[in-house]
């Protein structure tokens, strides 16, 4: 996608674009976008990882294409155009996963096709890719996609460890472990994500206190 390799002065900015999605604006923990697949497919680490990578692929491809076409598409029909672009790539991913692993396809179910309505992708296409050149847009999209993958993995790993006593299907605690089944059921998704957010909020608060800044938490 790169039309010109980034020179030294632009490298910092490129790195900035990349890490924005990875940490500062993490789609799962900070922006709270794309909640539905986040909670639904993270019953195991493998599912979470593959869902994250599939979403990242769609995100990068769509953002690159949207960015390439940003001067051609009239403003009035841009959302419809984006959606059609996204739906095209999702169809590609859908058939690809079906071909690579039918077991995975069954596990993820309708949520592969539901990548279309993942708010992250449309949000990025509208807010970032439609205003930036292809190289910058792709890098930013890649960061976002990886950030989403990391977020999903954080959820999936915790839920699998607590709910099934294993990670990537490998048993961790031996046969005596009594699995905490509710963690792999729907309520567990809410609880684990809520706990992660609590943890981050606590961490932020602690950092502020250590820095001597007694400002109240602004995130509400």
């Amino acid at each position: 996608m790169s039309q010109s390799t980034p020179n030294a002065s632009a490298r910092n900015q490129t790195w900035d674009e990349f890490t924005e999605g990875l940490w500062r604006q993490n789609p799962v923990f900070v922006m709270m976008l794309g909640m539905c697949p986040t909670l639904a497919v993270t019953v195991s680490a493998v599912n979470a990882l593959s869902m994250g990578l599939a979403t990242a692929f769609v995100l990068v491809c769509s953002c690159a294409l949207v960015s390439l076409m940003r001067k051609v598409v009239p403003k009035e029909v841009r959302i419809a155009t984006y959606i059609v672009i996204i739906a095209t790539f999702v169809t590609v991913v859908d058939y690809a996963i079906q071909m690579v692993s039918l077991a995975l396809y069954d596990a993820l179910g309708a949520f592969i096709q539901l990548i279309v309505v993942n708010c992250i992708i449309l949000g990025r296409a509208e807010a970032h890719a439609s205003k930036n050149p292809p190289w910058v847009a792709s890098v930013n999209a890649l960061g976002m996609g990886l950030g989403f993958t990391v977020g999903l993995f954080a959820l999936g790993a915790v839920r699998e460890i607590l709910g099934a006593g294993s990670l990537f299907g490998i048993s961790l605690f031996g046969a005596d472990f009594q699995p905490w089944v509710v963690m792999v059921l729907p309520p567990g998704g809410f609880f684990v994500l809520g706990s992660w957010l609590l943890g981050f909020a606590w961490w932020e608060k602690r950092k502020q206190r250590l820095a001597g800044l007694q400002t109240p938490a602004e995130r509400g």
Partner: protein
Amino acid sequence: MHESAFQIFVSVLLANNFVLAMFLGLCPFLGVSGRLDTAFPMGLATTFVIVVASLCAYGLNILLTYFHLEFLRLISYIVIIASAVQLVEMVLKKYSPTLFRALGIYLPLITTNCAVLGVALFQTAREYDFVQSMAFSVGGGAGFTLALVLMAGLRERLQLVDIPDIAQGTALALMLGGILSLAFMGFAGIGGGG
């Protein structure tokens, strides 16, 4: 695959509630559930879009299958849904401008509500006939509204309570969602599975 329409309706309303058991439509669930008087209309608007989309998707699927164009399913579904949302938006703008403003950005976002596309995709995947599809979409919409209203009621109460700083906002909403979801698991088995 031969469940009665009533079974499907009850199952998707309670035991397989879209929001709390299948994780569809979480964005509005977390976003618009702050106040009761916007939560209910939002639920109704979404229900309407779900039913219209399900109706169109049913007809479209027959057409696509006839012409062997199944790979276009996703794209055509999403276009239909976008049009249905546009319709609701115009109607609301004309007849209830206050409500239109209150729902704000969440109204056009119904397009990207997974529940809407989810209904269309699930009814295709499960090969529901016409009556079953209708029961599925109406039940799903009602279930969505129910979850939204319950959540809004809880959150309105919680505004009066003194909670720790770090737990405020989304983390609290997620915990509430978890507890609600736990409660709805008690309905499991009603309606003969989904």
